[in-house]
C-alpha cells in the first residue's frame, strides 16, 4: 500500500510537471539532428554509428532527469514524510525508481524508433534495440536513485551525480549498444542481452540498498 501510494504520487507529480516527460525527448531530438550536419548526410555513414548514437542519447537524456528523483522530495520536506512513516527505505527506493521508469524510461523506449529512423539504423535491429532499452532503462532509474540520494543536499549536485553514475552505466552501454551493433552486422545479440539482463537483476537487488543507505547518511 505504501509502495503504491508513493508510486502513484510520483507519477502524478511528473505527469503534472510535463517537462519531466518531454525534456529527455526534446534533448534527443535536438542532438540527433546535429549528426547529419557533423558527419555528412549519407545514410551509410549514419547507419554505421547509429547503434552507439541511439544508445548514448537514451542514456544521456535519462541522466539529466536523475538528479530530482530524491532532491525535490528532500527540498520540499516530503522525504521526511515517508522516512518518518516508518516505511522501509528499500521499498521506498524501489517505488521511486519504478515511478521514474514509468515517466522517463517508457517514453525513452517508445521514442527510440524515431531516433533510430533519423539515424538510418537498419530496420531488422529495431527489435533488439527496443529489447535492450527495455532491460537497460530500469538500470538507469535504479542507479539514478542511488546518485540522487547521495547528492540530494548538495546545491549543484548534478555534475557530481553524472560523475558518480556514469562509470556504473558504462557496462550497460557496452552491452546495450553492443547488442544492437552485433545484430546490425548479422550476428547474434544473445550474449550481450544476457549480460544486460544480469546488470538489470543486479541493480534491482543492490541499488535500493545503496540508495537507502545514502538517504540515511544524508539525514544525519
Amino acid at each position, binding site marked *: *500500500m*505504501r509502495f*503504491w*501510494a*508513493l508510486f502513484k*504520487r510520483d507519477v*502524478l*507529480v511528473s505527469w*503534472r*510537471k510535463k517537462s519531466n516527460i518531454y525534456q529527455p525527448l526534446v534533448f534527443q531530438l535536438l542532438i540527433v539532428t546535429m549528426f547529419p550536419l557533423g558527419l555528412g548526410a549519407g545514410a551509410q555513414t549514419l547507419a554505421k554509428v547509429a547503434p552507439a548514437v541511439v544508445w548514448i542519447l537514451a542514456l544521456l537524456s535519462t541522466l539529466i532527469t536523475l538528479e530530482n528523483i530524491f532532491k525535490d522530495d528532500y*527540498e*520540499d*520536506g*516530503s522525504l*521526511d*514524510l*515517508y*522516512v*518518518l*512513516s*516508518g*516505511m522501509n527505505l528499500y521499498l521506498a527506493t524501489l517505488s521511486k525508481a519504478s515511478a521514474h521508469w514509468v515517466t522517463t524510461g517508457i517514453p525513452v523506449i517508445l521514442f527510440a524508433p524515431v531516433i533510430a529512423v533519423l539515424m538510418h539504423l537498419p530496420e531488422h535491429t529495431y527489435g533488439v534495440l527496443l529489447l535492450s532499452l527495455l532491460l537497460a532503462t530500469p538500470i538507469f532509474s535504479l542507479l539514478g536513485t542511488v546518485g540522487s540520494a547521495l547528492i540530494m543536499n548538495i546545491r549543484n549536485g548534478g555534475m557530481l551525480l553524472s560523475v558518480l553514475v556514469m562509470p556504473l552505466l558504462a557496462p550497460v552501454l557496452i552491452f546495450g549498444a553492443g547488442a544492437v551493433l552485433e545484430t546490425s552486422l548479422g550476428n547474434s545479440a544473445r550474449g550481450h542481452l544476457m549480460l544486460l539482463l544480469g546488470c538489470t537483476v543486479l541493480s534491482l537487488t543492490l541499488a535500493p540498498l545503496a540508495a537507502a543507505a545514502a538517504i540515511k547518511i544524508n*539525514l*544525519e
Partner: protein
Amino acid sequence: MTTALLQINDAQCQRAGDLLFAPVNLAIDKSELAVIAGPNGSGKTTLLEAVAGLSTLSSGQRLYQQSADINLWLQHSHYLGHKLGNKGNLSCQENLEFVAHINETTVNQQQIASVLNSAGLAGYQHQYASDLSAGQKKRLALSRLLLLNKTFWLLDEPFVNLDHAGCDWLYQVIAAHITRGGVVILTAHDQKKIHQLAHHHITLVAAIEEHSA
C-alpha cells in the same frame, strides 16, 4: 526510576562536529506539553529532528515505552518541521491522501473535507498547494496532525506564518490534543499562551567548551 511514556536521556546533537547544547533530559507523559526554547542557532530544530527519528542523537537516548525501538516510536509520532512536505502540484486533498496512505491509514473524502474545514481551508480541497499563501500552506501541513491520529506531535515553530486566527486555532488544537491524552513537543519563540500551557520547559544552553582560550 521513572516510567514516563517518553524519556529523553542526556540528549546531545552535533553540527559540523561541534556539540550544540548541554545534555537535555525530558520525561514526558500522556496529556503533557513540552516547549523547547533557546536563541537562534542553539539547536532546537536539530534536537527535534533527532528526537523525531529523522537524524540520530550524537549521544544520549530516546526511550518510548521503555524501548529504543525506532519503528514503535515512528508509529506513534508525527514530526512537522520547517520544510512542510506539501507537493506544490498536488491538490490539498491529494497531499492529505498521500500522507494518510503512506502512514497506512485509510481516509475518505468527507474526513479530508472536515479536516481542511477545521484548518480554515474549506473550499480549497482541489486547489494546488502551490497556489496557497504561506500561512495556508502551513495550515495544510498542520491539518495532517488531525488526519493521522498519532499520540506524539513534534512541531518545529508551528506558529510561524500563521495569522492571529490561525494561532488561536492551533492553540486550541494543541490544547484539545493534550486533553485527549496526546503529547506535544514544540519549539516556539514568544508565544506566551503556549508557554503557560506547557508542563515542561526546556531551554537549550550552549555546551561548555572543553578547551577555553
